[in-house]
Protein backbone atom coordinates (compact mmCIF):
# COMPACT_ATOMS: atom_id res chain seq x y z
CA UNK A 1 0.00 0.00 0.00
CA UNK A 2 2.66 2.45 1.05
CA UNK A 3 4.60 1.78 -2.13
CA UNK A 4 1.96 3.46 -4.23
CA UNK A 5 2.68 7.12 -3.96
CA UNK A 6 0.44 9.87 -5.15
CA UNK A 7 2.12 11.80 -7.95
CA UNK A 8 3.53 14.96 -6.51
CA UNK A 9 1.47 18.03 -7.19
CA UNK A 10 2.99 20.24 -9.81
CA UNK A 11 3.01 23.65 -8.23
CA UNK A 12 2.95 26.55 -10.62
CA UNK A 13 5.73 29.02 -9.94
CA UNK A 14 4.68 31.94 -7.82
CA UNK A 15 4.94 35.03 -9.91
CA UNK A 16 3.68 38.59 -9.93
CA UNK A 17 0.60 37.70 -11.98
CA UNK A 18 -0.47 35.12 -9.44
CA UNK A 19 -0.08 37.51 -6.54
CA UNK A 20 -2.01 40.10 -8.52
CA UNK A 21 -4.97 37.83 -9.15
CA UNK A 22 -4.92 36.79 -5.50
CA UNK A 23 -5.17 40.40 -4.39
CA UNK A 24 -7.96 40.97 -6.91
CA UNK A 25 -9.79 37.90 -5.60
CA UNK A 26 -9.65 39.03 -1.99
CA UNK A 27 -10.70 42.56 -2.98
CA UNK A 28 -13.71 41.31 -4.97
CA UNK A 29 -14.80 39.07 -2.12
CA UNK A 30 -14.48 41.91 0.35
CA UNK A 31 -16.64 44.14 -1.85
CA UNK A 32 -19.25 41.35 -2.11
CA UNK A 33 -19.25 40.95 1.66
CA UNK A 34 -19.74 44.70 1.94
CA UNK A 35 -22.91 44.54 -0.17
CA UNK A 36 -24.04 41.48 1.77
CA UNK A 37 -23.77 43.20 5.13
CA UNK A 38 -24.74 46.77 4.31
CA UNK A 39 -28.49 46.10 4.84
CA UNK A 40 -27.71 44.70 8.30
CA UNK A 41 -25.63 47.75 9.09
CA UNK A 42 -28.42 50.15 8.20
CA UNK A 43 -30.94 47.98 10.03
CA UNK A 44 -28.90 48.57 13.17
CA UNK A 45 -28.36 52.29 12.50
CA UNK A 46 -32.05 52.93 11.71
CA UNK A 47 -32.99 51.14 14.91
CA UNK A 48 -31.12 53.72 16.94
CA UNK A 49 -32.71 56.84 15.40
CA UNK A 50 -36.17 58.32 15.83
CA UNK A 51 -38.43 57.86 12.79
CA UNK A 52 -38.21 61.57 12.01
CA UNK A 53 -34.41 61.27 11.81
CA UNK A 54 -34.24 58.34 9.40
CA UNK A 55 -34.73 60.22 6.12
CA UNK A 56 -32.35 63.06 6.83
CA UNK A 57 -29.87 64.56 4.41
CA UNK A 58 -27.19 63.15 4.46
CA UNK A 59 -28.28 59.82 5.96
CA UNK A 60 -27.07 58.85 9.41
CA UNK A 61 -24.24 56.35 9.31
CA UNK A 62 -23.46 56.24 13.03
CA UNK A 63 -25.74 55.01 15.84
CA UNK A 64 -28.12 57.54 17.38
CA UNK A 65 -29.64 57.97 20.83
CA UNK A 66 -33.15 56.56 20.32
CA UNK A 67 -32.72 52.80 20.66
CA UNK A 68 -34.58 52.69 23.99
CA UNK A 69 -37.35 54.94 22.69
CA UNK A 70 -37.78 52.78 19.59
CA UNK A 71 -37.85 49.67 21.74
CA UNK A 72 -40.71 51.02 23.85
CA UNK A 73 -42.65 52.06 20.73
CA UNK A 74 -42.17 48.50 19.44
CA UNK A 75 -43.56 47.10 22.70
CA UNK A 76 -46.58 49.40 22.46
CA UNK A 77 -47.39 48.62 18.84
CA UNK A 78 -47.16 44.84 18.83
CA UNK A 79 -47.06 42.00 21.31
CA UNK A 80 -43.43 41.44 20.36
CA UNK A 81 -42.19 38.90 22.91
CA UNK A 82 -45.38 36.91 22.61
CA UNK A 83 -44.68 36.61 18.86
CA UNK A 84 -41.05 35.78 19.59
CA UNK A 85 -42.21 32.95 21.84
CA UNK A 86 -44.73 31.73 19.21
CA UNK A 87 -41.97 31.60 16.59
CA UNK A 88 -39.58 29.83 18.94
CA UNK A 89 -42.22 27.32 20.04
CA UNK A 90 -43.22 26.42 16.47
CA UNK A 91 -39.61 26.24 15.28
CA UNK A 92 -38.41 24.02 18.15
CA UNK A 93 -41.31 21.55 18.06
CA UNK A 94 -41.10 21.39 14.30
CA UNK A 95 -37.36 20.74 14.41
CA UNK A 96 -37.56 17.93 16.97
CA UNK A 97 -40.40 16.11 15.23
CA UNK A 98 -38.95 16.60 11.75
CA UNK A 99 -35.57 15.18 12.70
CA UNK A 100 -37.19 12.14 14.31
CA UNK A 101 -39.66 11.25 11.56
CA UNK A 102 -37.34 12.00 8.65
CA UNK A 103 -34.57 9.92 10.24
CA UNK A 104 -37.07 7.10 10.72
CA UNK A 105 -38.20 7.25 7.09
CA UNK A 106 -34.65 7.63 5.78
CA UNK A 107 -33.56 4.65 7.93
CA UNK A 108 -36.26 2.45 6.40
CA UNK A 109 -35.34 3.42 2.83
CA UNK A 110 -31.61 3.00 3.45
CA UNK A 111 -31.50 -0.18 5.54
CA UNK A 112 -34.40 -2.42 4.57
CA UNK A 113 -35.39 -4.36 1.52
CA UNK A 114 -39.14 -4.48 1.26
CA UNK A 115 -41.87 -4.87 -1.29
CA UNK A 116 -42.77 -1.67 -3.17
CA UNK A 117 -39.69 0.07 -1.75
CA UNK A 118 -38.70 1.63 -5.07
CA UNK A 119 -42.22 2.66 -5.90
CA UNK A 120 -42.68 4.26 -2.49
CA UNK A 121 -39.39 6.09 -2.76
CA UNK A 122 -40.31 7.43 -6.20
CA UNK A 123 -43.50 8.76 -4.65
CA UNK A 124 -41.48 10.54 -1.98
CA UNK A 125 -39.33 12.13 -4.67
CA UNK A 126 -42.32 12.86 -6.87
CA UNK A 127 -43.99 14.86 -4.10
CA UNK A 128 -41.20 17.42 -4.56
CA UNK A 129 -42.36 18.19 -8.09
CA UNK A 130 -45.55 19.87 -6.94
CA UNK A 131 -44.91 23.64 -7.02
CA UNK A 132 -45.30 25.16 -3.56
CA UNK A 133 -47.74 27.76 -4.88
CA UNK A 134 -50.16 24.99 -5.85
CA UNK A 135 -50.42 24.20 -2.17
CA UNK A 136 -51.59 27.46 -0.65
CA UNK A 137 -55.30 27.19 -1.42
CA UNK A 138 -55.57 23.45 -0.64
CA UNK A 139 -53.55 24.07 2.53
CA UNK A 140 -56.09 26.58 3.77
CA UNK A 141 -59.05 24.41 2.77
CA UNK A 142 -57.78 21.33 4.61
CA UNK A 143 -56.93 23.36 7.71
CA UNK A 144 -60.41 24.85 7.66
CA UNK A 145 -61.97 21.42 7.18
CA UNK A 146 -60.20 19.90 10.19
CA UNK A 147 -60.51 23.03 12.30
CA UNK A 148 -56.81 23.87 12.54
CA UNK A 149 -57.08 27.47 11.35
CA UNK A 150 -55.41 29.62 13.98
CA UNK A 151 -53.60 26.65 15.53
CA UNK A 152 -49.79 26.52 15.57
CA UNK A 153 -49.94 22.78 14.83
CA UNK A 154 -51.23 23.63 11.37
CA UNK A 155 -47.73 25.01 10.78
CA UNK A 156 -45.57 22.21 12.11
CA UNK A 157 -47.48 18.93 11.71
CA UNK A 158 -47.77 18.76 7.87
CA UNK A 159 -44.00 18.98 7.33
CA UNK A 160 -42.62 16.65 10.02
CA UNK A 161 -42.00 13.80 7.56
CA UNK A 162 -41.02 15.72 4.45
CA UNK A 163 -39.41 14.44 1.28
CA UNK A 164 -36.22 16.53 1.48
CA UNK A 165 -35.52 15.45 5.05
CA UNK A 166 -36.15 11.77 4.29
CA UNK A 167 -33.92 12.04 1.24
CA UNK A 168 -31.09 13.66 3.24
CA UNK A 169 -31.31 11.05 6.00
CA UNK A 170 -31.43 8.17 3.54
CA UNK A 171 -28.27 9.47 1.82
CA UNK A 172 -26.42 9.85 5.08
CA UNK A 173 -27.52 6.55 6.62
CA UNK A 174 -26.73 4.70 3.40
CA UNK A 175 -23.19 6.07 3.27
CA UNK A 176 -22.27 6.26 6.97
CA UNK A 177 -23.94 3.34 8.75
CA UNK A 178 -22.73 -0.18 7.94
CA UNK A 179 -25.50 -2.73 7.45
CA UNK A 180 -23.53 -5.18 9.62
CA UNK A 181 -24.13 -2.94 12.61
CA UNK A 182 -27.88 -3.23 12.19
CA UNK A 183 -27.57 -6.97 11.61
CA UNK A 184 -25.50 -7.43 14.77
CA UNK A 185 -28.04 -5.54 16.85
CA UNK A 186 -30.78 -7.70 15.36
CA UNK A 187 -28.93 -10.91 16.30
CA UNK A 188 -28.56 -9.53 19.83
CA UNK A 189 -32.33 -9.42 19.94
CA UNK A 190 -33.07 -5.72 19.48
CA UNK A 191 -36.49 -4.86 18.11
CA UNK A 192 -36.45 -2.79 14.91
CA UNK A 193 -37.49 0.45 16.58
CA UNK A 194 -34.86 -0.16 19.25
CA UNK A 195 -32.22 -0.62 16.55
CA UNK A 196 -33.24 2.70 15.09
CA UNK A 197 -33.39 4.63 18.34
CA UNK A 198 -30.45 3.17 20.30
CA UNK A 199 -28.05 2.05 17.58
CA UNK A 200 -28.54 4.13 14.43
CA UNK A 201 -29.97 7.46 15.57
CA UNK A 202 -27.04 8.34 17.90
CA UNK A 203 -24.70 8.01 14.89
CA UNK A 204 -26.59 10.50 12.72
CA UNK A 205 -25.01 13.61 14.25
CA UNK A 206 -23.97 15.54 11.13
CA UNK A 207 -27.17 14.80 9.17
CA UNK A 208 -29.30 15.57 12.22
CA UNK A 209 -27.53 18.89 12.63
CA UNK A 210 -28.07 19.86 8.99
CA UNK A 211 -31.73 18.90 8.99
CA UNK A 212 -32.36 20.51 12.38
CA UNK A 213 -30.76 23.78 11.26
CA UNK A 214 -32.58 23.99 7.94
CA UNK A 215 -35.90 23.13 9.60
CA UNK A 216 -35.41 25.65 12.39
CA UNK A 217 -34.36 28.40 9.99
CA UNK A 218 -37.21 27.61 7.61
CA UNK A 219 -39.82 27.76 10.37
CA UNK A 220 -38.35 30.83 12.05
CA UNK A 221 -38.50 32.72 8.75
CA UNK A 222 -41.74 31.20 7.43
CA UNK A 223 -44.28 33.78 6.36
CA UNK A 224 -46.67 32.15 3.87
CA UNK A 225 -48.00 29.48 6.24
CA UNK A 226 -48.64 31.82 9.18
CA UNK A 227 -50.12 34.41 6.83
CA UNK A 228 -52.73 31.93 5.68
CA UNK A 229 -53.72 30.21 8.93
CA UNK A 230 -52.94 32.58 11.81
CA UNK A 231 -55.66 35.20 12.21
CA UNK A 232 -55.41 36.19 15.86
CA UNK A 233 -52.73 38.78 16.71
CA UNK A 234 -51.78 36.83 19.85
CA UNK A 235 -50.93 33.82 17.71
CA UNK A 236 -48.77 35.83 15.26
CA UNK A 237 -45.22 34.66 14.64
CA UNK A 238 -42.40 37.19 14.40
CA UNK A 239 -42.46 37.74 10.62
CA UNK A 240 -46.24 38.31 10.74
CA UNK A 241 -45.99 40.69 13.68
CA UNK A 242 -43.21 42.67 12.00
CA UNK A 243 -45.18 42.87 8.78
CA UNK A 244 -48.20 44.21 10.67
CA UNK A 245 -46.08 47.24 11.62
CA UNK A 246 -45.85 48.09 7.95
CA UNK A 247 -49.58 48.54 7.53
CA UNK A 248 -50.06 51.22 10.16
CA UNK A 249 -50.76 54.75 8.90
CA UNK A 250 -47.57 56.28 10.27
CA UNK A 251 -44.91 53.65 9.89
CA UNK A 252 -42.77 53.44 13.01
CA UNK A 253 -39.61 52.82 11.02
CA UNK A 254 -37.19 52.94 13.95
CA UNK A 255 -39.25 50.57 16.07
CA UNK A 256 -39.71 48.26 13.10
CA UNK A 257 -35.93 48.09 12.62
CA UNK A 258 -35.39 47.25 16.30
CA UNK A 259 -37.87 44.40 15.87
CA UNK A 260 -36.12 43.20 12.72
CA UNK A 261 -32.79 43.29 14.59
CA UNK A 262 -34.08 41.12 17.42
CA UNK A 263 -35.64 38.71 14.91
CA UNK A 264 -32.48 38.38 12.81
CA UNK A 265 -29.76 38.28 15.47
CA UNK A 266 -30.56 34.86 17.07
CA UNK A 267 -30.17 33.13 13.72
CA UNK A 268 -26.93 35.00 13.03
CA UNK A 269 -25.54 33.79 16.36
CA UNK A 270 -26.64 30.20 15.73
CA UNK A 271 -25.14 30.39 12.25
CA UNK A 272 -21.83 31.71 13.57
CA UNK A 273 -21.39 28.48 15.53
CA UNK A 274 -22.83 26.03 13.03
CA UNK A 275 -21.94 27.47 9.62
CA UNK A 276 -19.37 24.78 8.84
CA UNK A 277 -21.77 21.93 9.43
CA UNK A 278 -24.70 23.62 7.72
CA UNK A 279 -22.76 24.53 4.59
CA UNK A 280 -21.06 21.14 4.39
CA UNK A 281 -24.39 19.37 4.85
CA UNK A 282 -26.17 21.37 2.15
CA UNK A 283 -23.22 20.96 -0.20
CA UNK A 284 -23.09 17.19 0.32
CA UNK A 285 -26.81 16.92 -0.38
CA UNK A 286 -26.36 18.88 -3.62
CA UNK A 287 -23.46 16.80 -4.91
CA UNK A 288 -25.14 13.49 -4.20
CA UNK A 289 -28.66 14.60 -5.08
Amino acid at each position, binding site marked *: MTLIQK*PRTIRPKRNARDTGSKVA*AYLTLTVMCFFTFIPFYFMFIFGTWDKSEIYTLPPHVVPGPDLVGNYSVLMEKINFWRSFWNSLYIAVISTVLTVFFCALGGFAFAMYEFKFKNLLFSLVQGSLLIPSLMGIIPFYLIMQAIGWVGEPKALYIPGIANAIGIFLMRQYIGSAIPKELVEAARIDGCSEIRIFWSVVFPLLGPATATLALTTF*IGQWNNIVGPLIVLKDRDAFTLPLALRSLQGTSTVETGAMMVGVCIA*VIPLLIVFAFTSRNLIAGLAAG*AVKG
Partner: protein
Amino acid sequence: MQTVKISRIVRKKTFNWTNFQRVAAPYIFVSPFFLLFIVFGLFPLLFSLYLSFTRWDIASGLSTMRLIGVQNYLDTWNDPLFWKSLWNTFYIALLSGVPQHLIAIPTAYVIHTLVRRMKHFFTAALFVPFITSTVAIALIVTVLFSERQGVVNQAIASLHALPLIGGLFPAENIRWLFDKNSVPVVISLVVIWKYTGYNIVLYLAGLQTIPQELYEAAQVDGATRTQQFRFITLPLLRPIAFYAVTLSLIGNLNLFEEPFILVGTQYGQNQAGMTMGAYLYKSAFELGFADQAAAMSWMFFVVVLALTLINNRLFRSRE
Protein backbone atom coordinates in the same frame (compact mmCIF):
# COMPACT_ATOMS: atom_id res chain seq x y z
CA MET B 1 -49.30 -35.15 20.44
CA GLN B 2 -48.99 -33.01 23.50
CA THR B 3 -45.39 -31.98 22.77
CA VAL B 4 -46.07 -31.19 19.14
CA LYS B 5 -48.87 -28.90 20.13
CA ILE B 6 -46.69 -26.96 22.58
CA SER B 7 -43.86 -26.53 20.11
CA ARG B 8 -46.30 -25.28 17.51
CA ILE B 9 -47.62 -22.69 19.92
CA VAL B 10 -44.13 -21.53 20.75
CA ARG B 11 -43.21 -21.35 17.06
CA LYS B 12 -46.33 -19.44 16.30
CA LYS B 13 -45.65 -17.00 19.10
CA THR B 14 -42.08 -16.22 17.99
CA PHE B 15 -43.28 -15.92 14.43
CA ASN B 16 -45.95 -13.51 15.51
CA TRP B 17 -43.81 -10.96 17.21
CA THR B 18 -40.16 -10.98 16.15
CA ASN B 19 -40.79 -11.71 12.53
CA PHE B 20 -43.87 -9.60 12.25
CA GLN B 21 -42.21 -6.50 13.64
CA ARG B 22 -39.22 -7.13 11.37
CA VAL B 23 -41.35 -7.33 8.26
CA ALA B 24 -43.68 -4.53 9.24
CA ALA B 25 -41.03 -2.13 10.52
CA PRO B 26 -40.05 -0.48 7.22
CA TYR B 27 -43.69 0.08 6.30
CA ILE B 28 -44.43 1.60 9.69
CA PHE B 29 -41.31 3.77 9.51
CA VAL B 30 -42.20 5.29 6.13
CA SER B 31 -45.92 5.58 6.90
CA PRO B 32 -45.78 9.05 8.54
CA PHE B 33 -44.69 10.56 5.23
CA PHE B 34 -47.50 8.91 3.27
CA LEU B 35 -50.11 9.62 5.92
CA LEU B 36 -49.22 13.30 6.04
CA PHE B 37 -48.78 13.54 2.29
CA ILE B 38 -52.22 12.09 1.65
CA VAL B 39 -53.96 14.25 4.25
CA PHE B 40 -52.11 17.54 3.70
CA GLY B 41 -50.80 17.15 0.16
CA LEU B 42 -52.64 14.86 -2.18
CA PHE B 43 -56.21 15.11 -0.93
CA PRO B 44 -56.27 18.93 -0.76
CA LEU B 45 -54.65 19.08 -4.18
CA LEU B 46 -57.33 16.86 -5.74
CA PHE B 47 -59.96 18.84 -3.90
CA SER B 48 -58.60 22.05 -5.42
CA LEU B 49 -58.86 20.42 -8.85
CA TYR B 50 -62.52 19.71 -8.14
CA LEU B 51 -62.95 23.19 -6.71
CA SER B 52 -61.66 24.70 -9.94
CA PHE B 53 -64.73 23.36 -11.75
CA THR B 54 -67.20 24.82 -9.26
CA ARG B 55 -68.60 28.10 -8.08
CA TRP B 56 -68.14 28.32 -4.33
CA ASP B 57 -68.08 30.97 -1.67
CA ILE B 58 -65.77 29.53 1.01
CA ALA B 59 -67.53 31.36 3.82
CA SER B 60 -70.93 29.75 3.22
CA GLY B 61 -69.95 26.09 3.59
CA LEU B 62 -69.76 23.01 1.40
CA SER B 63 -73.50 22.87 0.56
CA THR B 64 -73.36 25.97 -1.63
CA MET B 65 -70.77 24.40 -3.96
CA ARG B 66 -72.06 23.78 -7.48
CA LEU B 67 -70.35 22.51 -10.62
CA ILE B 68 -70.05 25.03 -13.42
CA GLY B 69 -67.72 23.21 -15.82
CA VAL B 70 -64.74 25.03 -17.25
CA GLN B 71 -66.09 28.52 -16.58
CA ASN B 72 -63.28 29.36 -14.13
CA TYR B 73 -60.70 28.35 -16.71
CA LEU B 74 -62.35 30.50 -19.39
CA ASP B 75 -62.53 33.44 -16.99
CA THR B 76 -58.86 33.03 -16.17
CA TRP B 77 -57.98 32.79 -19.87
CA ASN B 78 -59.82 36.07 -20.47
CA ASP B 79 -58.37 37.80 -17.43
CA PRO B 80 -55.69 40.28 -18.55
CA LEU B 81 -54.23 40.37 -15.04
CA PHE B 82 -53.54 36.61 -15.20
CA TRP B 83 -51.41 37.07 -18.31
CA LYS B 84 -49.84 40.17 -16.82
CA SER B 85 -48.79 38.34 -13.65
CA LEU B 86 -47.56 35.39 -15.70
CA TRP B 87 -45.41 37.76 -17.73
CA ASN B 88 -44.20 39.55 -14.58
CA THR B 89 -43.28 36.20 -13.05
CA PHE B 90 -41.14 35.24 -16.07
CA TYR B 91 -39.57 38.67 -16.27
CA ILE B 92 -38.65 38.79 -12.57
CA ALA B 93 -37.53 35.14 -12.66
CA LEU B 94 -35.02 35.98 -15.40
CA LEU B 95 -34.01 39.32 -13.94
CA SER B 96 -33.27 37.73 -10.58
CA GLY B 97 -32.18 34.27 -11.72
CA VAL B 98 -29.59 34.94 -14.42
CA PRO B 99 -27.37 37.34 -12.41
CA GLN B 100 -27.32 34.94 -9.44
CA HIS B 101 -25.59 32.28 -11.50
CA LEU B 102 -23.44 34.70 -13.48
CA ILE B 103 -22.10 35.97 -10.16
CA ALA B 104 -22.02 32.66 -8.32
CA ILE B 105 -20.05 30.55 -10.84
CA PRO B 106 -17.02 32.85 -11.19
CA THR B 107 -17.08 33.67 -7.47
CA ALA B 108 -17.08 30.01 -6.52
CA TYR B 109 -14.24 29.44 -9.01
CA VAL B 110 -12.22 32.29 -7.53
CA ILE B 111 -12.79 31.06 -3.97
CA HIS B 112 -11.89 27.52 -5.00
CA THR B 113 -8.72 28.31 -6.89
CA LEU B 114 -7.28 31.45 -5.34
CA VAL B 115 -8.47 31.70 -1.77
CA ARG B 116 -6.78 29.66 0.93
CA ARG B 117 -6.83 31.84 3.99
CA MET B 118 -10.29 32.78 5.29
CA LYS B 119 -11.94 30.54 2.69
CA HIS B 120 -14.67 29.46 5.07
CA PHE B 121 -15.09 32.99 6.38
CA PHE B 122 -15.92 34.37 2.92
CA THR B 123 -18.20 31.47 2.02
CA ALA B 124 -20.08 31.73 5.29
CA ALA B 125 -20.34 35.52 5.09
CA LEU B 126 -21.81 35.37 1.59
CA PHE B 127 -24.19 32.64 2.79
CA VAL B 128 -25.68 34.74 5.59
CA PRO B 129 -28.49 36.28 3.45
CA PHE B 130 -29.83 32.79 2.79
CA ILE B 131 -30.64 32.29 6.47
CA THR B 132 -32.09 35.79 6.86
CA SER B 133 -35.86 36.08 6.89
CA THR B 134 -37.38 37.50 3.71
CA VAL B 135 -39.65 39.72 5.77
CA ALA B 136 -36.65 41.20 7.60
CA ILE B 137 -34.62 42.00 4.47
CA ALA B 138 -37.69 43.25 2.59
CA LEU B 139 -38.56 45.63 5.43
CA ILE B 140 -34.98 46.93 5.51
CA VAL B 141 -35.05 47.39 1.74
CA THR B 142 -38.31 49.37 1.87
CA VAL B 143 -36.50 51.86 4.11
CA LEU B 144 -33.27 51.89 2.07
CA PHE B 145 -35.16 52.34 -1.21
CA SER B 146 -37.72 54.79 0.16
CA GLU B 147 -38.79 57.29 -2.47
CA ARG B 148 -38.46 60.07 0.05
CA GLN B 149 -34.85 60.41 0.98
CA GLY B 150 -33.90 56.77 1.24
CA VAL B 151 -30.22 55.96 1.41
CA VAL B 152 -30.17 54.67 -2.17
CA ASN B 153 -31.78 57.79 -3.60
CA GLN B 154 -29.39 59.97 -1.61
CA ALA B 155 -26.42 58.00 -2.89
CA ILE B 156 -27.69 58.50 -6.44
CA ALA B 157 -28.20 62.20 -5.80
CA SER B 158 -24.64 62.62 -4.59
CA LEU B 159 -23.36 60.71 -7.62
CA HIS B 160 -25.43 63.03 -9.82
CA ALA B 161 -23.66 66.01 -8.26
CA LEU B 162 -20.29 64.69 -9.41
CA PRO B 163 -18.62 66.33 -12.40
CA LEU B 164 -18.18 64.32 -15.65
CA ILE B 165 -20.04 61.10 -14.78
CA GLY B 166 -22.83 62.91 -12.91
CA GLY B 167 -24.99 63.02 -16.03
CA LEU B 168 -25.31 59.25 -15.97
CA PHE B 169 -27.42 59.43 -12.83
CA PRO B 170 -30.96 60.81 -12.69
CA ALA B 171 -31.58 64.13 -10.95
CA GLU B 172 -34.96 63.25 -9.50
CA ASN B 173 -35.66 60.80 -6.73
CA ILE B 174 -36.60 57.42 -8.14
CA ARG B 175 -39.88 56.04 -6.85
CA TRP B 176 -38.31 52.60 -6.46
CA LEU B 177 -41.30 50.88 -4.91
CA PHE B 178 -43.88 52.42 -7.25
CA ASP B 179 -42.44 53.00 -10.73
CA LYS B 180 -43.27 50.16 -13.13
CA ASN B 181 -39.68 49.89 -14.34
CA SER B 182 -38.01 49.85 -10.95
CA VAL B 183 -40.37 47.59 -8.97
CA PRO B 184 -39.15 44.39 -10.73
CA VAL B 185 -35.57 45.60 -10.24
CA VAL B 186 -35.92 46.06 -6.48
CA ILE B 187 -37.67 42.68 -6.12
CA SER B 188 -34.89 41.04 -8.13
CA LEU B 189 -32.18 42.75 -6.10
CA VAL B 190 -33.61 41.24 -2.91
CA VAL B 191 -33.77 37.80 -4.53
CA ILE B 192 -30.21 38.10 -5.86
CA TRP B 193 -28.99 39.30 -2.49
CA LYS B 194 -30.65 36.42 -0.73
CA TYR B 195 -29.77 33.46 -2.96
CA THR B 196 -26.40 34.17 -4.61
CA GLY B 197 -24.48 32.95 -1.56
CA TYR B 198 -26.44 29.71 -1.55
CA ASN B 199 -25.56 29.16 -5.21
CA ILE B 200 -21.91 29.88 -4.45
CA VAL B 201 -21.99 27.08 -1.87
CA LEU B 202 -23.56 24.71 -4.40
CA TYR B 203 -21.00 25.54 -7.09
CA LEU B 204 -18.14 25.25 -4.60
CA ALA B 205 -19.36 21.76 -3.76
CA GLY B 206 -19.42 21.00 -7.47
CA LEU B 207 -15.91 22.34 -7.99
CA GLN B 208 -14.58 20.14 -5.21
CA THR B 209 -15.73 17.06 -7.11
CA ILE B 210 -13.55 17.91 -10.12
CA PRO B 211 -10.31 15.91 -9.84
CA GLN B 212 -7.23 18.07 -9.34
CA GLU B 213 -5.29 15.87 -11.79
CA LEU B 214 -7.27 17.29 -14.72
CA TYR B 215 -6.01 20.79 -13.97
CA GLU B 216 -2.48 19.50 -13.50
CA ALA B 217 -2.58 17.74 -16.85
CA ALA B 218 -3.91 20.88 -18.48
CA GLN B 219 -1.15 22.94 -16.88
CA VAL B 220 1.46 20.55 -18.23
CA ASP B 221 -0.10 21.02 -21.65
CA GLY B 222 0.22 24.76 -21.18
CA ALA B 223 -3.42 25.72 -20.73
CA THR B 224 -3.99 29.14 -19.22
CA ARG B 225 -6.25 29.62 -16.23
CA THR B 226 -9.03 30.99 -18.46
CA GLN B 227 -8.75 27.99 -20.77
CA GLN B 228 -8.87 25.65 -17.80
CA PHE B 229 -12.05 27.38 -16.62
CA ARG B 230 -13.62 27.22 -20.06
CA PHE B 231 -12.71 23.65 -20.98
CA ILE B 232 -12.49 21.80 -17.67
CA THR B 233 -14.48 23.63 -15.02
CA LEU B 234 -17.58 24.67 -16.94
CA PRO B 235 -18.32 21.30 -18.61
CA LEU B 236 -17.73 19.36 -15.40
CA LEU B 237 -19.91 21.73 -13.42
CA ARG B 238 -22.94 20.86 -15.51
CA PRO B 239 -24.57 18.39 -13.09
CA ILE B 240 -24.41 20.83 -10.20
CA ALA B 241 -25.44 23.70 -12.47
CA PHE B 242 -28.49 21.70 -13.44
CA TYR B 243 -29.37 21.25 -9.79
CA ALA B 244 -28.77 24.92 -8.94
CA VAL B 245 -30.60 26.30 -11.98
CA THR B 246 -33.56 23.99 -11.36
CA LEU B 247 -33.79 25.19 -7.76
CA SER B 248 -33.65 28.82 -8.91
CA LEU B 249 -36.23 28.22 -11.59
CA ILE B 250 -38.70 26.58 -9.23
CA GLY B 251 -38.08 29.14 -6.50
CA ASN B 252 -38.41 32.10 -8.84
CA LEU B 253 -41.59 30.86 -10.50
CA ASN B 254 -43.12 30.50 -7.03
CA LEU B 255 -41.97 33.97 -5.97
CA PHE B 256 -44.43 35.52 -3.55
CA GLU B 257 -42.94 36.77 -0.29
CA GLU B 258 -40.61 39.40 -1.74
CA PRO B 259 -43.23 41.26 -3.82
CA PHE B 260 -45.81 40.79 -1.06
CA ILE B 261 -43.72 42.59 1.57
CA LEU B 262 -42.00 45.08 -0.73
CA VAL B 263 -44.91 46.42 -2.76
CA GLY B 264 -47.76 45.45 -0.49
CA THR B 265 -51.34 45.56 -1.64
CA GLN B 266 -51.09 47.55 -4.88
CA TYR B 267 -48.02 45.80 -6.38
CA GLY B 268 -46.72 49.05 -7.85
CA GLN B 269 -47.63 51.07 -10.90
CA ASN B 270 -49.54 48.93 -13.45
CA GLN B 271 -49.16 46.02 -11.00
CA ALA B 272 -45.59 45.62 -12.20
CA GLY B 273 -44.70 43.62 -9.09
CA MET B 274 -47.67 41.26 -9.26
CA THR B 275 -46.25 37.77 -9.62
CA MET B 276 -48.35 34.68 -10.12
CA GLY B 277 -47.99 33.84 -6.44
CA ALA B 278 -49.09 37.30 -5.40
CA TYR B 279 -52.12 37.18 -7.70
CA LEU B 280 -53.11 33.73 -6.47
CA TYR B 281 -52.87 34.86 -2.87
CA LYS B 282 -54.79 38.05 -3.55
CA SER B 283 -57.58 36.27 -5.47
CA ALA B 284 -58.04 33.53 -2.93
CA PHE B 285 -57.48 35.27 0.38
CA GLU B 286 -58.07 38.98 -0.15
CA LEU B 287 -60.82 38.90 -2.76
CA GLY B 288 -62.27 35.53 -1.75
CA PHE B 289 -62.37 33.85 -5.18
CA ALA B 290 -60.85 30.53 -4.14
CA ASP B 291 -62.66 28.70 -6.96
CA GLN B 292 -61.20 30.92 -9.65
CA ALA B 293 -57.80 30.94 -7.94
CA ALA B 294 -57.81 27.13 -7.95
CA ALA B 295 -58.34 27.15 -11.73
CA MET B 296 -55.56 29.70 -12.06
CA SER B 297 -53.17 27.58 -10.01
CA TRP B 298 -53.79 24.55 -12.24
CA MET B 299 -53.18 26.58 -15.38
CA PHE B 300 -50.00 27.84 -13.81
CA PHE B 301 -49.01 24.28 -12.89
CA VAL B 302 -49.10 23.32 -16.56
CA VAL B 303 -46.81 26.24 -17.39
CA VAL B 304 -44.35 25.33 -14.61
CA LEU B 305 -44.34 21.71 -15.73
CA ALA B 306 -43.60 22.75 -19.32
CA LEU B 307 -40.76 25.02 -18.24
CA THR B 308 -39.25 22.32 -16.01
CA LEU B 309 -39.29 19.89 -18.94
CA ILE B 310 -37.68 22.47 -21.23
CA ASN B 311 -35.02 23.08 -18.59
CA ASN B 312 -34.32 19.34 -18.32
CA ARG B 313 -34.13 19.05 -22.09
CA LEU B 314 -31.73 21.99 -22.38
CA PHE B 315 -29.31 20.51 -19.89
CA ARG B 316 -29.53 17.05 -21.38
CA SER B 317 -29.07 18.12 -24.99
CA ARG B 318 -25.62 19.50 -24.25
CA GLU B 319 -24.38 16.20 -22.88
